[in-house]
């Protein structure tokens, strides 16, 4: 069975690791939404949070082409890192795949993409990672 890179941020919905949903928490007091787990609201500290499924896409708030990767980066170099603003408010940072560098533009629509990633030479390290790809 495929394993999510972070079960509290990404819930896999199928058995093959190709479908899933980003998770967030909404405060029922003040309405703000955050990406990933939370016990208390980041804005008002209320514990009245409910888990929600986030939109499967958003717009590209900013991006960069990383030419010197961070330690332990298991992917190709260079890679594109994109910060996507979801309609619910949160920004989600992830690799942008299947894109042409020159075609990237702030404001362009992006859609969620899942890919398996393994750490080189670490058996059992495969995780399903959330990424972005330009929307059709």
């Amino acid at each position: 069975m495929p394993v999510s890179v972070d079960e509290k941020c990404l819930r896999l919905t199928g058995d093959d690791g190709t479908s899933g949903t980003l998770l967030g928490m909404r405060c029922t007091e003040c309405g703000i939404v955050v990406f990933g787990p939370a016990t208390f609201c980041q804005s008002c500290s209320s514990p009245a949070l409910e888990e929600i499924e986030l939109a499967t896409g958003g717009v590209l708030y900013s991006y960069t082409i990383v030419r010197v990767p961070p330690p332990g980066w298991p992917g190709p170099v260079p890679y594109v890192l994109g910060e996507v603003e979801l309609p619910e408010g949160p920004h989600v940072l992830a690799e942008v795949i299947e894109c042409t560098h020159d075609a990237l533009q702030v404001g362009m629509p992006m859609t969620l993409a899942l890919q398996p990633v393994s750490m080189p030479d670490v058996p059992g390290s495969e995780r399903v990672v959330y990424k972005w790809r330009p929307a059709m």
Partner: protein
Amino acid sequence: MTQFRPGRDVYVVGVGLHAFGRFPDQSLSDLARDAVVDALQDSGIPWTAIPVAYFGHVYYQGMSVGETTLAQLGLTGVPIINVENACSSGSTAFWQAYWGVTSGVFDVALAFGAEKVPGGPVTVTAEDSPARYIGGDHMMAGYALRMKRYMEETGATAAALAQVTVKARQNAAMNPYAHRKDTYSVEDVLNSRLIADPLTLYQCCPTSEGGAAAVLCAGDTLDAYGVDRSRAIRIAAAALTSGNYNGRGSDHSAFSPYRTEPAALQAYEMAGIGPEDVDLVQVHDAATIGELQQIEALHLFPYGEAWRATAEGRTALTGDVPVNTDGGLLAMGHPFGATGIRMVHETVTQLRGEAGPRQVENPRVGVAQCSGAGDVTTVHILTR
């Protein structure tokens, strides 16, 4: 907003530095100790009269490094506290020393810091963090995201951003403590290799080693300690904030600019001055974009205009708001534990009129600002 209660006036009465650079034969303690000896000598107050010390550093290099370091000066038994607040570790040590003295717990305090930053991209999460799979924990990539967005929103040109480095290197060329002293043209900066587009190598601070120290003394005990009042510089404000929810980017706070505003507003209020009174500034220019956004967050320039002010030379030594007069992180490098106190060192040196060839004309008010992971921001205001 949190209201703290300042008490007595507090002065910086001594500052010291170990040069910033690479020192494979010197330990973290060596760097720290040399800066402390320098600061004590500058203050005229002996180690045996210091009742407390705060040491800023980030990476684990053994336990109680502050104690191990100061043990070399003599075992006086005083409290020594090691503090960590990411890139603001040094300024946090200084902040803590200030509040201890102003509140009357001690009359004198030592703040010092040092770091040996390893080469390569700086990350802020633990090694087993999911961030390793996601690729987003990369300090310079974070700055690149901010830079791309800023250029898009404000029309800032690549040349204006590069000018931040050009200026930093010009200032550093007049600073014997700087890690990088060679100067560059805008073209040199833009043509250096890409780290994370649009950020090029020369727009990123080097990974460096260094140490810094400051001795603080209560105003009402300056004479008791034999301090030369003409060289004592008053701490008019000391603010330290963590993240505030601001409705945007809180999920990726390391990449959210303008976290500095709440600390800046607290500091201006505490000092009873406004941005228009500021004569020189040291800010957290880990990358060129950092300097532009920080001086905007400090309200020294309106949002989106710092790049133009830089291109016009207003932030140069001869400008109306000289910024990073010693070369900043871009030329000094960024040993996390030392940086915040290095900024105090430069501000004090300028306000004393002892900055030599890089002296700003007759400054009276200086600001030092640091930012760090965890959305830590410190803003200190010093006045003559």
